[in-house]
């Protein structure tokens, strides 16, 4: 039986990632797919070690499938490879000092690997993505307006959207809904028609590296639709520096 492990936001915290990998290996049912929904890196020197670790899984580990996150996009912008010309968002949120730290943290040869990452994955009826179908910056939380949540699912016609931008673990189920619509054009008027929505879900998969000593991630069984949010505690005192936020 296929089980997916879905994680996001390692943010250059190798100890946290190792703790999650250990927890994955401990699962009674083998984890066959490992999705990393972006923010593998952050503005910290250890980020390159995380990239190396992801690119070199051990014999008994699943091959990670990685997509771009917010930090990866900022790195590409810094190198003139992003969609925006200037790292405005990065500077506004973290200041110029962080720009230099991020630049120095990732060697040039690893930038190409970051560039090669997908925007997201569509597997079965599931969209797996860092932010949402709109952008890596789009942060979906349980407080996001319901119609906006539905819109993010409908943009890619997904039944289930796994996302990581908020860092929260949550399950948001749209159970049912309807809207009545009528249209008048120059030549005709249609009578009101109801449109219904089928049940869909958005799942926040948690965050691995942001909180020292505590990593959260998600297990998903696509055959049974069963979800499990995992919290892994690990020692964070051995030279581990708190992530810049």
């Amino acid at each position, binding site marked *: 039986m296929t089980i997916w492990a879905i994680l996001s936001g390692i943010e250059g915290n190798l100890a946290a990632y190792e703790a999650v990998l250990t927890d994955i290996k401990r699962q009674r049912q083998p984890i066959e797919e490992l999705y990393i929904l972006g923010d593998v890196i952050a503005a910290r020197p250890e980020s390159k070690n995380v990239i190396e670790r992801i690119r070199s899984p051990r014999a008994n580990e699943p091959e990670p499938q990685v997509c771009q996150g917010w930090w990866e996009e900022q790195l590409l912008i810094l190198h003139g490879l992003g969609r925006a010309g200037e790292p405005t968002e990065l500077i506004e949120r973290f200041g110029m000092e962080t720009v230099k730290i991020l630049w120095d943290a990732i060697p040039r040869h690893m930038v190409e690997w970051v560039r090669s990452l997908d925007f997201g994955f569509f597997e079965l009826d599931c969209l797996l993505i860092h932010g949402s179908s709109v952008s890596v910056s789009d942060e979906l939380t349980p407080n996001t307006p319901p119609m906006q949540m*539905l819109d993010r699912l409908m943009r890619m016609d997904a039944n289930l959207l796994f996302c990581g931008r908020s860092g929260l673990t949550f*399950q948001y189920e749209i159970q049912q809904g309807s809207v009545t619509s009528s249209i008048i054009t120059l030549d005709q008027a249609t009578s009101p028609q109801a449109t219904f929505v089928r049940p869909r879900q958005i799942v926040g998969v948690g965050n691995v590296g942001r909180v020292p000593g505590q990593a959260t991630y998600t297990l998903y069984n696509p055959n049974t639709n069963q979800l499990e949010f995992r919290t892994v505690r690990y020692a964070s005192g051995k030279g581990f520096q708190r992530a810049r936020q």
Partner: protein
Amino acid sequence: MKIAVMSCIHGNYEALNAVLSDIDDQNADKVYCLGDLVGYGPHPNAVVEMIRALDIPTCQGCWDEDIVEGLNACECSYPSVLAEKRGKLAHDWTNQVIHPEVREYLAQLPFSLRDDNLCFVHGSPHNQHEYLLPEVNAFVAMERVLATGADVLFCGHTHVPYVRSLDAGQLQIRVKVTGKSEANMSFSAPLKRIVNAGSVGEPRHGRPNATYVIYDTNDDQIILREVEYDYQKTCAAIIEKGLPPIFAWRLARGMEFAERADDPTHVCER
């Protein structure tokens, strides 16, 4: 108060004049424009000068943006190589003839405008290139209005006018957050409307007449207006200026012809 809303003039000075006269006849108190003042048509400078002279509040359209940014219109919205080639020709021509002060004016146009419970945009509240066609899913359409916080969303870009009423919107939701108890919520939205003003200068509803809308805030009535004008004059100017003749051909028929995008909901991520 009567509000007139027009969009997509596309350098068609004859059509703009006719619509402005009709707006006068309708005794409108205020006029809004939803952008795309330039592109396709032969008189981009004259159109912008008229809009500026009348001090009409205007949003920036996708063509206005493209002229300012020095980019060709979103390539991924072209359905064919031929259509793309013609679009680029029109862009290059407009880019060459546009006056510097007109370009500056287009650059400072806002993305959206608000007036009480009304919101005005070119394509959608999210993107100048997004087409809010009448067949867009009702939930998606409602999200676009809700995203603005307004009750009525005026848009253009499709060149086909319509009024869409979205009523009795409701969603049932269950939320589980780690460490908190499960919550059941219901969401309901009041009546929202999308009003597409069609196109003054490049209509695509099957006739060559210019279209715009009148909204009466007193009785909440919306009227789609269709205005006849001397389109032959614009067609002749298109040929005379060296623009692709197919622009004149489709203007005379009010047809999009082969230019319709395969996926009109697609949004350029440029």
